[in-house]
């Protein structure tokens, strides 16, 4: 059982020690990581994914339930309590979607027969153009690939800790992803430039120069603002989908109250 993960400080790009003593994240918590490009956001979640033991460029250490992870936990996918969706939008494996899911399910020791169909069904909820089981993963578009990988992380990775790197840029249906993820008891970390996602999470880490610069907790004003922004974002979404589907934008649609 994963109750919590702990991040012990490393060093910034100038080799100065990070300012925090330790960061502990508990089951059910959502966290966002914000900061300029190149500030070390991806490096931070990659440390968690690799269960770093001082052997990454940041020098951080990661503990699970307060203890150092065993080698098996670090290197065997079946024992790894973490699923990560990276910024990659390409697969190189010369496999069909079905084969890809099947092999990954074997790696994660999942025996459920339905797993391939379930995962594909979920992936298709996130993307406009449907993915078929016989499609080669190499020919999928960037958005399709990310939808596939998100569904894979949720159902096949099926880990108690989920790390998501800038899912807003994937051209997929963000609302659906957020809904699914919010209804779990997992630790979920979003690397994000999206104000809606950043304000919806309970904790916010601000990165700069390769280090955590600040740790903020969501306040009441912020959670109110998040709700407003969310409605705003949904309307944007409706307009976007209308445009994508080839409709003309009508008066009612744009006169919707954005206040």
């Amino acid at each position: 059982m994963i109750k919590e993960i702990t991040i012990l400080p490393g060093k910034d790009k100038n080799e100065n020690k990070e300012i925090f003593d330790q960061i502990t994240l508990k089951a059910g918590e959502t966290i966002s990581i914000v900061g300029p490009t190149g500030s070390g956001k991806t490096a931070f979640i990659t440390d968690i994914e690799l269960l770093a033991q001082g052997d990454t460029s940041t020098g951080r250490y990661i503990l699970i339930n307060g203890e150092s992870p065993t080698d098996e936990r670090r290197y065997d996918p079946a024992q790894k309590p973490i699923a990560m969706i990276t910024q990659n939008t390409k697969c190189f494996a010369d496999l069909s979607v079905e084969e890809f899911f099947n092999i990954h399910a074997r790696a994660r020791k999942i025996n459920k027969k339905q797993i391939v169909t379930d995962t594909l069904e979920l992936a298709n909820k996130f993307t406009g153009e449907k993915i078929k089981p016989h499609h080669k993963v190499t020919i999928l578009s960037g958005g399709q690939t990310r939808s596939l990988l998100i569904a894979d992380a949720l159902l096949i990775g099926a880990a108690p800790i989920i790390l998501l790197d800038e899912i807003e840029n994937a051209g997929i249906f963000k609302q659906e992803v957020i809904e699914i993820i919010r209804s779990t008891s997992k630790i979920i970390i979003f690397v994000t430039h999206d104000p809606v996602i950043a304000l919806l999470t309970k904790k916010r880490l601000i990165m700069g120069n390769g280090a955590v610069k600040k740790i903020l907790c969501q306040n009441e004003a912020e959670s109110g603002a998040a709700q407003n922004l969310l409605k705003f974002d949904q309307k944007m979404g409706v307009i976007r989908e209308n445009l994508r589907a080839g409709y003309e934008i009508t008066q009612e649609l744009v006169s919707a109250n954005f206040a």
Partner: protein
Amino acid sequence: MKLLVIAGPPSVGKTSLTKQIIKRFQKEIKIAYLKIDVVKAFEDIELRKEFHILTKKVYSGDLCPDHAGVMIMGDAIEWAESNNTDLFIIESAGLCLRCSPYLNQGLGLIVLSSIAGIHAPEKMGAMVSLADIAVVTKIDLISQAEREVLIQKIKEVHQNIILLETNALQGTSLQRLYDLIEKSAPINKETLLLKGSPPLGTCTICVGKKEIGWKHHFGVVKKLDGLAADYLYRGE
């Protein structure tokens, strides 16, 4: 002296990984490095410049580099030992993919690239199944799911191989490899043997003799130093 044999197809990151290992151990122990390649290699000069360690290269020419390595390693190990080396790293270009350069002592490591294709582990069966450790490089370029799919493929070729993943340019998550190198026993050159049987060919190695060093072999063989032509078709 500890021995580490690193093999794998071209451009997978063997030298990048070697550099990380050298960086980690350089201050504590004396390291020597040998590159076996077919026609061109620059690593000896590069590593000597960057780390000021003892390096050497040898070209296998018409022979497969792993094959040539069997002959050369005898001399090379003597060369490294006579220079008081604590850790001897051999990088083989491993082009033929039917042979496997690993020995019954020291550590045998195969390097595989995340982006080299999902069927690579099966195609390199001999190398993968006889290596002690597999290091998957370039994990910065692919998704976690795809990494795990590749790892599963490697495990299906060699179930008990010790698997590691890294971004070899940064040397990420290599602690386990460093531990394994630290724990590996020194070699005894009198009892060194090839792990696998090389495929059919035209010399005593090809027909299955596993002893290390040129004095045990004849046929298409060559020494560590000197012109290839002088040593081709030694003996009968």
